[in-house]
């Protein structure tokens, strides 16, 4: 029976088609191929919605659709589709954001008279297609391949304005830093194949299941380098995590992301909200069944997440440019997701992934709108007072900001609170690492509230601080429309999973997301993961009490941050209060010198090494080769002088040689006796 899920491949193929159309025929089409992209993503979106409801109804889909490499006497490498609640949810998010970004691009790119639009829309189409392919991948290899394609697209789109100096450099950095992470990921993929003989996420030979059975002693797998199973699984998990850290811009591979702001703003929205950065966290969620088996890996994920959340939030406090603030907030928010996953809060992290996609897309598109209005000046200190000039943008942006800061009842509050709550109870259950991570996450809430509202107040409130801010460029429906849609979503998506309300007031059945993610494959549902979590839970004053305390504390911190921003910056003529931080500000402004040391590794360590090796190669290795030839040439040059060309000399040599020969033979043969 041809169910709606049989059309799932079309979700991926439609944007790919739009890529081909835009690339091949974009220059002959109106709007530079934008309409093809909009049509394709709209089609994908509709199909995704249908898929989503089909999955809600209990349908699932897990099929191999293409054998990439057939092994004779070896395993096959295949492509397949895995549609379960997690991927169907992600499909909806990605297609929706992609669709809105395409529409927004009409305003941001076409209306602004950019050149190279076919290239732009081709890139967007391929980007969307790659991400969708990654989302539906049914095995780790396919996931890796689309993961890399996502990286390629980010390179192409970040470097869109290739005639300037900055974007190509930023694109290179983005690709290179994520490549560094992917290096570990690729080893991980290979290791999974070598260990389990399969890299499927679900099905009878799913590797998380095989790992679980191996740890239970029911099944034996190959381990390498003389390690035990637990240790080897930890190593493999950490290797794959390398790719996650790179793509999701976690410490220490986060440095590419702020630079990636060189790309056009709609691209930033796509990268940050739905595609590239989300890919890392999504991967951890996808193979969560494997990660829950190794407590060490989970703890490391949680620590990285918590630390990144705090670390990035502090840097966001001092930035001048609106997109920079948002970039650091992205790093910070993905830190929360990692924290949630590491702390065993699978649903919480997924929830945050979803809400974040909406409010971050909203914030970027809002920033894009502001940037259009400001004639591509991104400095917040040149803005101010835009609230009255562009109300739609303002209210949408405000909705997104409230969600980002985690103010009840906007989306971000519910998801962030649940992440922190899961961390807290599992930390209280006897895991000091998680408690430390919780503390960092909580502190980051304060900074988040502060930088978010600093941004809002500087941009929209107070008096205009420049000529352009007094008379901003208007924006059209194609900018306002996506903002409105996302504004509503940012305000409301939190309501799908109001766990605190459920716990506090005992209303059963409003944790829709929990129920949704509990469906489908038994080895892939949230319930199964919860059983495998290596943490125990602890409470302060019972479950409801802990919920209340956690929510109150995080909300309090968020409001505190927002209030501080209000005091400092919601004035007609704000001043740079961060100057009072003195040298701390310099450190923060320079991102803790993270870029410097990474650039130093590249240019101060690797390049000199390569130059020394080049000298070595030219001087010693090639020198030996040339030396052998020089010695031969020199020796030949000397020996050839025997050949004087004078016949008499040759004759003399012959005579002497004959005489010597006769003497020698005679002496040996006794002729002279």
């Amino acid at each position, binding site marked *: 029976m041809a169910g709606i899920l049989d059309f799932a491949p079309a979700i991926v193929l439609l944007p790919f088609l739009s890529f081909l159309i835009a690339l091949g025929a974009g220059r002959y089409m109106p709007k530079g191929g934008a309409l093809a992209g909009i049509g394709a993503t709209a089609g994908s979106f509709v199909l995704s919605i249908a898929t989503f409801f089909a999955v809600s109804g209990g349908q699932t889909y897990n099929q191999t659709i293409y054998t990439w490499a057939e092994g004779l006497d070896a395993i096959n490498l295949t492509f397949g589709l895995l549609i379960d609640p997690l991927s169907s949810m992600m499909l909806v998010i990605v297609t929706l954001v992609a669709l809105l970004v395409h529409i927004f691009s009409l305003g941001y790119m076409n209306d602004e008279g950019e050149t190279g639009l076919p290239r732009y829309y081709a890139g967007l189409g391929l980007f969307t297609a790659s991400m969708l392919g990654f989302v539906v991948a049914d095995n780790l290899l396919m996931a890796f391949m689309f993961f890399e394609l996502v990286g390629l697209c980010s390179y192409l789109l970040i470097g869109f304005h290739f005639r300037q100096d900055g*974007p190509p450099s930023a694109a290179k950095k983005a690709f290179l830093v994520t490549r560094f992470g992917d290096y570990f990921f690729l080893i991980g993929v290979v290791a999974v194949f070598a260990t389990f003989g399969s890299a499927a996420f679900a099905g009878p030979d799913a590797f998380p299941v095989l790992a679980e059975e191996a740890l239970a002693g029911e099944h034996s797998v190959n381990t390498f380098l003389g390690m035990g199973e637990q240790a080897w699984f930890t190593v493999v998990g950490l290797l794959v995590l390398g790719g996650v850290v790179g793509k999701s811009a976690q410490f220490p591979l986060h440095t590419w992301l702020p630079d990636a702001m060189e790309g056009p703003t709609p691209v930033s929205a796509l990268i940050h909200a739905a595609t590239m950065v989300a890919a890392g966290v999504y991967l951890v969620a996808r193979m969560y069944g494997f990660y829950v088996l190794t407590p060490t890996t989970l703890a490391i994920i949680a620590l990285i997440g918590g630390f990144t959340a705090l670390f990035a939030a502090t840097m966001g406090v001092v930035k001048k440019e609106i997109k920079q603030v948002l970039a650091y907030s992205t790093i910070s928010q993905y830190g929360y997701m990692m924290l949630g996953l590491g702390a065993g809060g699978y649903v919480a992290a997924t929830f945050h992934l979803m809400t974040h996609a909406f409010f971050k897309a909203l914030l970027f598109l809002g920033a894009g709108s502001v940037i259009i209005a400001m004639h591509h000046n991104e400095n917040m200190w040149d803005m101010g007072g835009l609230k009255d000039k562009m109300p739609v943008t303002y209210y949408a942006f405000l909705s997104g900001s409230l969600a980002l800061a985690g103010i009840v009842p906007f989306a971000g509050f519910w998801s962030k609170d649940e992440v922190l709550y899961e961390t807290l109870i599992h930390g209280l259950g006897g895991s000091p690492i998680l408690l430390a991570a919780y503390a960092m996450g909580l502190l980051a809430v304060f900074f988040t509230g502060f930088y978010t509202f600093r941004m809002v107040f500087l941009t929209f409130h107070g008096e205009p601080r420049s000529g352009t801010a007094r008379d901003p460029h208007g924006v059209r429906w194609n900018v306002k429309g996506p903002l409105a849609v996302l504004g509503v979503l940012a305000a409301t998506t939190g309501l799908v999973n109001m766990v605190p309300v459920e716990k506090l007031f005992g209303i059963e059945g409003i944790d829709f997301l929990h129920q949704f993610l509990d469906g489908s494959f038994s080895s892939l549902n949230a319930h199964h993961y919860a059983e495998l979590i290596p943490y125990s839970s602890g409470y302060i004053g019972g479950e409801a009490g802990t919920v209340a305390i956690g929510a109150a504390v995080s909300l309090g911190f968020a409001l505190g941050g927002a209030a501080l921003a209000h005091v400092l910056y919601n004035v007609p003529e704000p001043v740079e209060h961060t100057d009072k931080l003195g040298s701390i500000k310099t450190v923060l402004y320079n991102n803790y010198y993270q870029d410097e040391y990474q650039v130093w590794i590249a240019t101060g360590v690797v390049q000199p090494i*390569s130059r020394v090796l080049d000298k070595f190669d030219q001087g010693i290795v090639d020198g030996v080769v040339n030396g052998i030839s020089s010695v031969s040439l020199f020796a030949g040059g000397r020996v050839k002088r025997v050949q004087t060309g004078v016949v008499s000399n040759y004759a003399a040599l012959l005579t002497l040689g004959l005489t010597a020969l006769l003497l020698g033979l005679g002496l040996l043969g006794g002729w002279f006796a």
Partner: protein
Amino acid sequence: MIIEALIAVTFLAALVTFVVPNRYAGKAAFALSLAPVVGSLYMWQQYDASGNALLGGNIAFETDVAWLQLGQYDIHWMVGVDGISMPLVVLTTILTTLAIVSAWTPISERQSQFFGLMLLMEANLLGVFTALDFFVWFIFWEAVLLPMYFLIGVWGGPRRKYAAIKFFVYTNIASLVMFIGFISLVFGLGDSISSFRLPEIAQALQAGQLGSFAGLSAGALASVAFIAMFFGFAVKVPVAPLHTWLPDAHVEAPTPVSVMLAGVLLKMGTYALLRFNFTMLPETARAFALPIALLAVASVIYGALLALAQQDLKRIVAYSSVSSMGYVILGLIAYTTYGVGGATFQMVAHGLISGLMFMAVGVIYNTTHTRMVSDMSGIADRMPVTAGIFVAGAFGYMGLPLMAGFAAEFFIFKGAFESTVMEAMPLFTGAAMFGIVIVAGYLLFAMQRTLFGPFRFDGDYDITEAPFHDVAPLAVLLLLTIVLGVSPDIFFTMIQDAVNPILELGGAF
């Protein structure tokens, strides 16, 4: 007979091209070179072999005629293809045709001789990949060097004489060492063989007929022969530290010749390594697994780091060839289906991609007359199509999924990781894989500086988009790379079929 026809037609094409007037030589050579392309594609379509040609498999298009008698040994004219050589034959014909087209612009004098030599080289390469008798094979093997020597020495850059002589002498000495190694094996086999046919020799070795020779026991003889042959082929591959002829040859050679050098000539080395060392002496190879794996990793990392230090675009690609060929060695020593099969696949994949990269550099050079990274920037502004294909090719080189390079590298990594030849193979594999980061580094740096940024060019030439016949071969290569990357089974199935008997010898199963 089709193989004989293929080689003969190519030779004839070369002869005809030699006498065609210079101004028509390029077009004529292109038209004539389509014949071997069609022939090889026909062979591929009719291909019906199974198993490894050397190990008793069923050989396609086999001819076996006694030719000469040399003492107790017969020399046979024996040719045929199996799953290992078939893809390389197709690669050779296609790449030659594309290289000929790409030579139309840069070669402006003595065209008929140039294109004639190209076709002559193609004929000899086809002989190398199809010959199954050592004597015949060796004649072709050496005969490849001659056209190459003249192609570099006559049409090359300023230091062409140095490069050509270095290339010729280096590889010829290597051939000599290899020859000694192989012939000592033949003598060690004594009366158990009656001809130089490779299948007969391989099967005699497999049956344990190797005796002692020149005071060496059978085991020691196998080791000595293995080392001698490995050295001989390693120069051709090239494996660090025997690689220094390669950058010089590439830099001095005109672009189409670089394409052939990187695309096909290097594969002769790896092909011969697979055919001789790893098929005939598997136990010895496994015994030497540690040094070979070390050399492979060293080639990958060392080559990549050297590429990072170069300023000349061609040198960058040349050194990265050293790096890529290191992967092949790693795959070969793995003795797994994916390892050896992936190594063979990489021969084809790298042939296409390195050809693409050299051609792309050549197209830029045709316009700018410089290959120095520091001499230009923002070329993409003036040559968007070339730049686009350059970027695509560079990503192919970095191992972008769904392009041939990724398939090959992934197969090799997977095969090497699960290899049983050594306990520490995962560590070696992990170390070699770091090459994918460095390769991304230098290619991205080079692209950022030359193609992107504000347009700047320190020279007197007008920078405009390249003509269609310069860009078309690039597009064809790019397309082939993507096709092979999306569907590696096109070649991978037949490769595995031919490779698996070797693995059984190597004790992988």
